[in-house]
């Protein structure tokens, strides 16, 4: 579904991506992890077309990403921070997304109901709490049923109930054969949802493997330990 080949990007002198290649298929929850500044947000923004890569290419559903916008109709996106204009009402935001996406997309009423969007309908975005904004934002990402969904820190700021709803939604969408890419710092969350871990460090993919592979190569029983041991090995190799 998504194929990235030797992607490079420099901001002034700072090399954010130093040649990233990656292939992601359907029915997967892929977690992109790594410390701040490792290039994960830049990579996601390249997929979304928000950042224009210096070299390399990206294919989304066999469509080359080169400035055209049509491929994005397959993608749902939930940014890390809520981003809707302050003075719009919730129902206007939903209507806007519907307007822009076109009327032929399916409209996920069930999720809206679960996230209790309707009861906020007449409130303006500026009046909502951070958690409420995230609920709107996540609803917006899933709303129209695109087959690739990109979520930047999806559960940060969500109350436990909503967080559960979103997690379940992710798993349900995966079962439908969609590709879901998330970034998260919460390892337990990743462990619960992801079946593929992509760990980035200094603009490169440090490792990319399924959760099961990770456990078997490191011999550890949980994700936290497995990642830690991988990084330790790397550092000791670096010292040698």
């Amino acid at each position, binding site marked *: 579904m998504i194929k990235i080949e030797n992607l490079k990007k420099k901001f002034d002198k700072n090399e954010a991506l130093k040649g990233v290649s990656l292939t992601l298929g359907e029915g997967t929850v892929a977690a992109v992890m790594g410390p701040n500044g490792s290039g994960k947000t830049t990579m996601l923004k390249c997929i979304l077309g928000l950042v224009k890569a210096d070299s390399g290419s990206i294919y989304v559903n066999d469509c080359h990403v080169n400035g055209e916008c049509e491929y994005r109709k397959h993608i749902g996106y939930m940014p890390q921070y809520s981003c809707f*204009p302050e003075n719009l009402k919730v129902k206007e935001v939903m209507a806007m997304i519907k307007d822009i996406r076109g009327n032929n997309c399916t409209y996920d009423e069930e999720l809206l109901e679960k996230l209790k969007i309707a009861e906020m309908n007449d409130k303006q975005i500026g009046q909502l709490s951070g958690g409420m904004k995230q609920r709107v934002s996540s609803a917006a990402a899933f709303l129209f049923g695109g087959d690739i969904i990109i979520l930047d820190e999806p559960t940060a700021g969500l109350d436990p109930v909503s967080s559960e709803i979103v997690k379940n939604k992710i798993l349900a969408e995966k079962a439908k054969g969609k590709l879901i890419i998330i970034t998260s710092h919460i390892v337990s969350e990743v462990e619960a949802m992801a079946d593929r871990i992509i760990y980035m460090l200094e603009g490169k993919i440090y490792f990319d493997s399924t959760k099961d592979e990770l456990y078997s190569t490191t011999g550890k029983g949980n994700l936290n330990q497995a990642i830690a041991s991988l990084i330790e090995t790397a550092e000791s190799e670096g010292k040698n």
Partner: protein
Amino acid sequence: MTTLKILKYVLYDVLRSKMIIIYTLLLFAISFGIIYTGKDVSKAVISLLNIVLLVVPLVSIIFGTIHFYNSKEFMEMLLAMPVKRKNIFWAEYAGLSAALAAGFVLGTGLPLLLYGGAKGSFYLLLSGVFLTFIFTALAFLASVINKDKAKGIGISLVVWFYMSVIFDALVLVLYFVFSSYPLEKATIIVSALNPVDLARILILLKLDVSALMGYTGATLQQFFGSAFGILFSMGFLFLWVLMPTLLALSVFNRKNF
């Protein structure tokens, strides 16, 4: 079409913003005050002229800059949808400048209209609308080339101050330095370099036509005395809207969010 769809929601947002409402009410109060306390309505238009030339550009460029930075995340969200960048840009630009222009026309035009419309009112409003569109465009240009909000606002303020004060002071100095040369054509060329001056001339051609006609040189006489001056000013004001907008758009198209 896509532009219009987005424009609708940008307008919903901006028209509800406190800044626009305060701006409109303030203009209304000032205009109303000037017109109704003054003895002479054509004098009121002259006082309003100063407001149009100073306040409208300032509010447009500052509010435009702030709005652009505040809308950055929203634009990112829109960009992740199947929408062309230029659609987003035009929607944001059109929405904001139209809202500011509407605020201005309402705030200043309504008192003038209630009074029955003084000489020069139409060109006063037209100039104000032009300046709104121009300075919003300059605001977008300043914002789009700068990631840092504080720096962007700083640049906007400098641009405003330059256009409103420094430029004319420099022109005056040039007049003194080159007073022994014929400056007719230079004057016309120079006027095209500053939209605030163009807007001022547009109003003056209606308000002070008697004084402007007193000039003996043929080129300026023709400029001030006929439709040529109005066409010239409007043409260049239009260019002043177009150029920064297209420049900002081309940067916007290449920008990394």
